[in-house]
């Protein structure tokens, strides 16, 4: 009775997939960025911190493809090294917020009742604060650097993951296969952790990749404000900050290069995330 007939299935069949080109292109971009970050010392033409007063604000030249900044440091090299913190931060945030969020969401969705209500209100409170604000607070309390903002961002993003997980688990809980496990004599904890959790993880995971881009932009903003990674370590946000002075003098390149890097990676990650959640989760909006 509830089984769709063939006609319905045919009419419901997904349309021919579009956007494969942009998906593959995004994967390539991300792969190149990751490789650049991992092998930065081998690829970068210069030491990112090497000061060269002979070549201050040099435009694009054969020696410096993307020019130099106010201290004569090679922009390309700094961008390549900057990719390390730029990618590492969001990666840590996405992984930790996904783990914490899935566990809390599973607890809320599976147990329901007062646990669900209490966790739900706690999430609401965290939602009320912008992630950036929580990160700034963490920096004020624990000092500048990468660690405090990453922990703060993980806390700020966990409720997004938890809320999605909770909804998925709650709907999964009422499905007959869960009742079938119960009738067979399996314990609730076993069903939740060993059977329901693996069934919802792919969907949640695909959604979480979308967070990567947001976190990257926000961490860059934080170091632009001087609260993130500290000088002289190369970082995209910090580079934009340092290049501000040059903008007045008409030297755009040192600011535009890291800014473009942020935009390109964020767009690439979002394309990948959306495609993944389309393929795995049937396009549940974040």
């Amino acid at each position, binding site marked *: *009775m509830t089984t769709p007939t063939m006609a319905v299935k*045919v009419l419901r069949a997904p349309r021919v997939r579009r956007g494969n080109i942009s998906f593959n292109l995004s994967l390539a971009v991300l792969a190149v960025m990751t490789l650049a970050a991992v092998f930065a010392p081998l690829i970068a033409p210069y030491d990112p911190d090497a000061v060269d007063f002979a070549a201050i604000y040099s435009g694009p030249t054969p020696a410096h493809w993307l020019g130099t900044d106010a201290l004569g440091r090679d922009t390309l090299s700094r961008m390549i090294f900057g990719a390390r913190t730029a990618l590492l931060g969001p990666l840590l945030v996405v992984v930790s917020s996904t783990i914490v969020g899935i566990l809390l969401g599973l607890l809320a969705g599976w147990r329901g009742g007062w646990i669900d209500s209490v966790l739900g209100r706690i999430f609401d409170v965290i939602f009320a604060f912008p992630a950036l604000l929580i990160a700034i607070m963490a920096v004020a309390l624990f000092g500048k650097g990468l660690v405090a903002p990453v922990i703060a961002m993980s806390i700020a993003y966990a409720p997004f993951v938890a809320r999605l997980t909770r909804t998925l688990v709650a709907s999964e809980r009422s499905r007959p296969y869960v009742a079938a496990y119960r009738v067979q004599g399996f314990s609730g904890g076993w069903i939740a952790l060993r059977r329901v959790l693996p069934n919802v993880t792919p969907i949640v995971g695909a959604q979480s990749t979308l967070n990567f881009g947001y976190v990257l932009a926000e961490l860059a903003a934080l170091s632009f404000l001087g609260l993130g990674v500290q000088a002289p370590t190369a970082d995209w946000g910090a580079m934009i900050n340092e290049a501000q002075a040059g903008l007045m003098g008409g030297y755009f390149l040192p600011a535009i290069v890291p800014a473009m890097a942020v935009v390109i990676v964020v767009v690439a990650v979002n394309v990948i995330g959306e495609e993944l959640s389309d393929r795995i989760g049937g396009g549940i909006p974040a």
Partner: protein
Amino acid sequence: MTLLDISRYTLDLPDGTRLLDGVSLSVAAGETVGLVGESGSGKSLTARSVIGLQPRGATTTGSVRLDGREVLGAPVGDLLTLRRSSAGMVFQDPRAGINPVRTIGDHLTETLRLVERRSAADAEARAIELLRAVRLPRPEDHLRQYPHELSGGMLQRVMIAGALTSSPRLLICDEPTTALDVTTQAEIIAVLGEQRATRGMGMLFITHDLNLAASICGRVYVMNAGRIEEEGDARQVFRDPQAPYTRRLVAATPTIAVAQPAAAGTAADATTDVAADAAPAPHPPVDTAPHVDLSPPVDLMLDVRSLSKTYRMHGKPPVHAVVDATIEIARGGALAVVGESGSGKSTLARMIVGLEAADAGDILVDGAARTGVPRSRAERLAHSRSVQMVFQDPYLSLDPRIPAGRAIEDALRLHSTLSTRDARTRVLDLLEQVGLGERHAPARPRTLSGGQRQRVAIARALAIEPDVLVMDEATSALDVSVQAQVLDLVARIRRERGLTVLFISHDLAVVRRVCEQTVVMRNGEIVERGATAALLEQPQHPYTRLLLDSVPRPDWDLDALAAIDRTEGIPA
């Protein structure tokens, strides 16, 4: 004059799959034509093609002429005209086909106002007239109601009224009663028949139910795998099928006719044997327990005493799902619980398997108390060894991620201390018992057919070696031929293992094949109980009679049915 004429119609998907292969079919004005087939036979696709609803990108050859005009390749404008004037369609699930946030009045008057440019008052008057025509009790009130306020049967009448607004010359009904209870089905069929007669419409009636087709159609076409297998006079096809496929289908279709010997099919033989063997003797042939035949004449396996369950929701009157239900099944016996949706039969099953707690009453399985939801590990395991359940929809009751063999192995290892190798051997053994093989063990549910999935579910239940097997509508989601196979399987397992079965169903014909004893439930109460054959031949309670009269048969008398409907006044 021919209203619909489909000739050598072939439909291919862009990937080359041929869904329809040389379908030819015709419907004349005033005629009811049945299109019968199992799921995937292409019957719905054929019907949808008539109003130009082909799948995207499909290539078609042949012709589909409606009211003298070609539908295939017709421009969108012409299709709209055809849909507005020539053909109306009634779909299977009325709740899915109506906008839940708009009133019934909106739904019905929309076409009249926008297409026929009638004034609001005029459209409303016409809508009331239509609602009266489909015999809804209070047409004026219904116009202001929302879909959720109406029952499935009432909503299907609204959908029929909606299809009739444009006074179509051809009415296409795509399984219009499949989602409905059998008594509601009878009412809907009566309404459809009446409208067809008064309007002189042609009707193309699509169904999987051969009994239903034979009872209301003049001619039928039997479809299988995109081809027409047989066509001809409905009763002729039903009584004396020519094509091998139709013969198999007729043999597999359960019937409630008691006197008539089982149709000349292999499928029916095995099951009738069981019923015949078990009915006269108090004990079934296989009975391993040595009897101390002193006090209890019958050895009760399942003993449910005065079980009750009431659901209380905020701001609503309490729902008495099960009221004082008492059932007994002897060791190795099979009892059917028959009832329509909302009769409480599923709640009864869920209490017995420990998914829900009872408000009052006791459940004993083989003398051990099994009332309530088990809490501790020991309770859980004991309960599940007492009772196992096979669920209605095998598409949902198997974990989509877990391969068939693994699902059975999990259940085995929870209840025993078998080594991995022994467990694997046992899994293959169980798979073979339900008619599957080694190659099905690594298969995920998605790659198995409905019947195969239900076999896996049965094997999984048997792995635990329960005392009682509860089957909750376990065959109602399956095609008739698959259903027959699964029923045969259950009969064989009963013979071989002496398994005690509680069989929950809405389908009296299926029950007749499986169970010696039957109870009939209505609104949470057991209204009649007895031996299945006796109950079907001489029903005592008026509700049982109504149920029996509502089951479509080739010699179905619609007028008598309508008379019963009116005198009994069964409330919704």
